[in-house]
């Protein structure tokens, strides 16, 4: 027993040391210009990187987060690009009920826990002022979903309680400050606070609100086809959109994926940004509108890429499985 005690104690000290070392951040190369925040997944840990858009070799390891159950982290970068919020499941309860919310200072790598007992499968959505994130508490069996806002000192407020839905997803805030969320039914609805906007048949997914908060874009998956739809958040009107995927930007434009081509434009004028193929989809422009992050599924891997404003495409190489969390400060 004495030997077992020692082993257990040393293991505990070692694990805590590793966590503290990771949370304190590790030194790396400084980067200039816009930088992507990328989570590189391994089955027992995730590394968070800042990668220079100008030079992929210029990378800084922000932190390494233990993930003993291998579920991966769900993260996103704050609007000011200085902080990332992420959910991790440490193994308590189940992934959809036992995830913890942490914030990560992208400059120092310091981490802080803000909440627990959350749903790992709902990525944190930042309030536009960057002072809070909205997440989900899920009870799939009881068909009860709570959308909770948690601020940066860990204060929590339930803003929506959805009963009887198959699922509910927080999306963001519209131009009047109303919370936009999606209820999966049937019926499937976009909700502007309490106002329902029924959606056509199919499963809505990939919800994004335009930077001005006036339009919501989503994809609708139905047998035989996936189509794009926008919702005018002022009138509630639904509009079909050409293409298979959409991201907002650069600037006031929209970028669509159509037949393997990235099309950029606004007011009906379109130009081809680049030909990427149908397995690639756009994820997001940097705030200055110079670089667009894409993801491509190839075999059993996902690859991130960067398309510049002239349409040149470059791939980011990672040893682990990369996921894009957003743009760090310096991008504007």
């Amino acid at each position, binding site marked *: 027993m004495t030997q077992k005690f020692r082993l*257990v104690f040393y293991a505990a*000290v070692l694990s805590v040391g590793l966590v*503290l070392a990771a949370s304190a951040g590790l030194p790396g190369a400084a980067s200039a210009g816009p930088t992507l925040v990328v989570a590189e997944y391994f089955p027992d840990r995730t590394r968070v990187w800042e990668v220079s858009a100008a030079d992929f070799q210029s990378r800084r390891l922000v932190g390494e987060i233990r993930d003993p159950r291998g579920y991966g982290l769900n993260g996103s970068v704050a609007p000011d690009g200085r902080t990332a919020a992420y959910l991790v499941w440490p193994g308590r309860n189940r992934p959809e009920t036992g995830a913890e919310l942490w914030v990560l200072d992208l400059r120092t790598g310091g981490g802080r826990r803000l909440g627990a007992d959350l749903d790992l499968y709902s990525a944190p959505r930042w309030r536009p002022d960057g002072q809070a994130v909205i997440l989900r508490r899920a009870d*799939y069996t009881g068909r009860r979903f709570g959308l909770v806002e948690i601020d940066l000192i860990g204060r929590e407020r339930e803003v929506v309680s959805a009963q009887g839905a198959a*699922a509910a997803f927080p999306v963001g805030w519209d131009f009047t400050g109303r919370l936009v969320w999606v209820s999966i039914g*049937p019926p499937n609805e976009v909700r502007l606070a309490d106002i329902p906007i029924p959606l056509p048949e199919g499963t*809505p997914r990939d919800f994004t609100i335009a930077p001005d908060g006036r339009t919501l874009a989503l994809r609708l998956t139905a047998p035989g086809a996936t189509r794009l739809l926008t919702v005018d958040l002022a009138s509630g009107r639904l509009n079909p959109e050409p293409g298979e995927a959409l991201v907002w930007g650069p600037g006031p434009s929209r970028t669509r994926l159509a037949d393997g081509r990235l099309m950029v434009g606004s007011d009906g004028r379109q130009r081809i940004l680049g030909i990427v193929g149908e397995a690639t989809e756009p994820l997001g422009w940097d705030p200055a509108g110079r670089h667009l992050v894409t993801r491509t599924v190839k*075999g059993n*891997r996902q690859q991130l890429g960067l398309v510049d404003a002239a349409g040149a495409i470059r791939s980011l190489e990672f040893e682990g499985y990369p996921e894009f969390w957003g743009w760090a400060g310096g991008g504007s």
Partner: protein
Amino acid sequence: MAVRSFLVGLLLGAGFLAAWARPAAADDCAQTGVTDAYQPQVAEVAATMDQAAANQLRFDRYTTIPDLGKGWPNPTPVPGTVPAVLLKAIGIVESSWYQAVYLVPRGGFGPPLTPSGGCGYGVMQITSGMTRPGELPVDVQRRIARDYAYNIARGATMLGYKWQVTPAVGSNDPAVPEHWYFAVWAYNQWTYLNNPNNPAYPWPRPPFDGSQPRKNYPYQELVYGFANNPPYGRWPKPSPPLVLPPRETVGATTPTNAPDWIPDPRAIVLSAYRVVLFAEPGGPPAQGVLGVTDPAGGSVGWRVVGKAGDWLGYSPASGTTPGRLTLTASPVGLGNGVYTGRVDLVGDNRPEVIVSVAVEFRVGPFYRRFMPLVGRGP
């Protein structure tokens, strides 16, 4: 920093010892009091999985797979078995084949593996009947917590029960791992969480093989992914690999609106599996047209391999996906009545999987007003 690490480590270590001394956190659940669960060797788990899948363990009624329905739409009972490859893969997803907490070495004894704050026990993370004392007989709860073989047999039995209450796939054959898609889904939880179209999971996503974040996949995709990619080569890779149904066929299942049946994902897909044709006695023949596609979206050869019903014809006899098959029902020589027939097809990619379309032919003067009706399922 070193002092901080030491102090936190000290606290963590003390906490762990307290947990060790107090059997297990999950004893707030079934109160089993078990502290001496055996941590099985990998080979022991593999052999036990095979026995449990074949329903050879049967310690008691809690560990005996019930008879299962085979066939669709009129299943008949067959002795209960589950595919061993799926049982093994479920064990990997649930516990990586550990019965006791991970710190207990294989061959050793210790508290049963349970999630902190949860009531799942052991290799198969059995939760049903383990959330409070007396939910199952005390002895059963203790064996689930302590005995890995009993735990695995209980998991196989639970999976068998899921077969009975979830939608059918293809010919609904318990020997076909792909036909357990919904049962595996339900082993975790029969809710929208595991719908492959749940917006929580990215699409497109690469097939799971153990190297991707698990958060991006519904439970059954983790299981089939591990089944195809056995960790450390713990079992032979299935050949051909197991396939998942196209997510379109699962649709918006929540699952209160789940379909009764979906097509076999291994085979070519027809636009309908039940066709109703109408004609008048002595009148012109009735026709119906079916689409024939490959669920993977590819170009696959197909051919008709059999039919039932002398009045029933088809054209062409073979083709390539995507293609069309025309069915013709002739009322010549038939009196008023309802006749049933069938056309069997196979795809060249999986010629052992027969896909059938059931044809109902209604002959009578009344039916001349009606166009052929085409049903979705058999």
